[in-house]
């Protein structure tokens, strides 16, 4: 029986992150699943100079960029979908504090797949012929740039295609709906690129909305797209994706999505946001208090709550999940 992998969020950041690392997160687009609370903890522990690999921007990257913790980033979509432009990220780019290398959303998934398979490159039939290929923010003086998505010859047809560089981030913090104590995980909703990311990253930490008994995984093994054998640690943290949505668990917090993005639109607003929503809580229960128990109850009663029904009998009670976590730290 393998030892369980539950540790605290603070311990996960202490153990697996460092200044200047390649950090990957941003699991399911700007409105969905993302390990946003991991980014809050990166700021609490004052990590700097991060090279962020986000398949698509989220409020996590928006916050890390606004707070000055990221100097390089690579992503596909860089906005907040229905919530508009990502004010923190856009300001950091416009002011030259953060260099963003642009790709498309498929390109990021393919590059993660390339990293996962340890391929030398991935053939590119998208992003070619556009400025995504010709402009390289990390090497701005060379134009048209031949090093970002180099042209290669298809050995079968003789035609020119592009070559994507694979991604192998130092760490991926991946949000999942359900994890067991060994790190087997089920994701509800689109997995976006969490499957590829979990195999591409050198280390994986899961942020789980709920901890379940391993019998749950034995009942639905086809749905366990991230098995424990690729996972270093599991952090139990309900509402880890807040203010974004976690299908089956909770809806998007529209008011906070908007207020947060307004705050990240200025230095003063960012400082106030970090003070009030990053540094202000002592632990998980303090964090849930900060969101507000009433808000939590409203967001949890969304139309997708039925998605969780098949799994409810295996959910570990809050106190039990916390006790398992505490056991590991003792």
């Amino acid at each position, binding site marked *: 029986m393998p030892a369980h992998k539950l540790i605290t969020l603070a311990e996960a950041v202490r153990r697996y992150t460092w200044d200047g690392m390649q950090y990957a997160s941003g699991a399911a687009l700007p409105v969905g699943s993302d390990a946003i609370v991991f980014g809050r903890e990166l700021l609490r522990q004052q990590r700097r100079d991060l090279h962020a690999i986000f398949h698509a921007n989220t409020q996590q990257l928006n916050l890390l960029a606004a707070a000055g913790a990221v100097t390089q980033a690579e992503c596909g979509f860089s906005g907040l979908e229905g919530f508009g*432009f990502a004010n923190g990220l856009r300001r950091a780019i416009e002011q030259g504090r953060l260099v963003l290398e642009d790709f498309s959303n498929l390109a990021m998934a393919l590059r993660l797949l390339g990293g996962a398979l340890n391929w030398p490159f991935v053939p590119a039939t998208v992003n*070619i012929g556009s400025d995504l290929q010709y402009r390289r923010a990390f090497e701005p003086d060379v134009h048209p740039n031949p090093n970002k998505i180099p042209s290669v010859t298809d050995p079968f047809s003789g035609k020119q295609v592009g070559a994507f560089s694979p991604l192998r981030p130092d760490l991926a913090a991946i949000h999942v709906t359900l994890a067991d104590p060994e790190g087997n995980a089920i994701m509800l909703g689109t997995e976006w690129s969490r499957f590829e990311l979990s195999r591409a990253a050198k280390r994986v930490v899961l942020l789980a909305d709920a901890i379940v008994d391993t019998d749950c995984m034995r009942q639905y093994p086809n749905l366990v797209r991230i098995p424990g054998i690729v996972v270093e640690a599991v952090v139990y943290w309900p509402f880890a994706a807040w203010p974004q949505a976690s299908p089956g668990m909770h809806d998007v917090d529209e008011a906070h999505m908007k207020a947060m993005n307004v705050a990240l639109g200025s230095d003063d607003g960012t400082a106030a946001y970090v003070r009030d929503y990053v540094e202000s809580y002592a632990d998980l229960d303090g964090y849930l208090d900060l969101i507000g128990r009433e808000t939590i109850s409203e967001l949890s009663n969304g139309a*997708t709550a039925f998605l969780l029904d098949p799994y409810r009998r295996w959910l570990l009670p809050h106190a039990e999940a916390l006790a398992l976590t505490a056991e590991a730290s003792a």
Partner: protein
Amino acid sequence: MSTDYSRQEMMAIATGREIRDGELAIFGVGLSMLAGYFAQAHHAPGVRAMTEGGVYGARPVGGLPWGIECNRLAVNAVSFTSALDALGCLVASGRCDVGIIGAAQVDRFGNVNTTGIWDGPIGTRYRPPKTRLTGAGGANDIACGAKRYLIMVSHEAKRFVDRVSYVTSPGFLDGGDTREQAGFVGGGPSAIITTLGVLRPDPQTHEFQLDAYFAFSGVDEILANTGWDLKVAADARVVPEPSPEELAALRRVDETGMLRR
């Protein structure tokens, strides 16, 4: 016939009319999703709609989804997969019949910029934009891989430029056969649908020209709001106004009234 509709609604309906029943279609968030689901609600019930997150079989509930992975879509999906599946296996592969994308800027050859606004040409050295936009998202993948795609954009001179400063999603590049030479899987943009009318590419030069205008607009207004010397098709005509059935279908989809603000 109804005159009680907004310009945005006319744009969405004109875009939806381009979608045919049974097609495999991909819609982005926002206006393009409304146009696509309008088509499904009105004349294309068998359209096989997907989002780039691999959310299949869903119809939005409770208003316009905040994102393509929003719970307003997750609530009745029949399959959740991934970006690699939707954008890769179904779009970049060439299987997808039609996509809809938006634009901050579009040029005479249908190239789209959603990356940034610079003060003049970028120059040889790449530099941060004055205003950073949302980047490529899945639009580049749709522009490269879909059999055809539609561009929806508000018709303003600052958006309709002679040459976009950054090509985020390729249209017909420099016109002529330049797109063909670049070796894309997909066929390129088939129409630009705006708040004033519909532009379509010339079959040879691939330069977009004015194909039709709306009942409330006209050739002069469109020329005045286009930043290049837009050619007008010899048979340019007025687009039929929305029927009451079309408007009703659109408003059922646009439950929160995004297009009437």
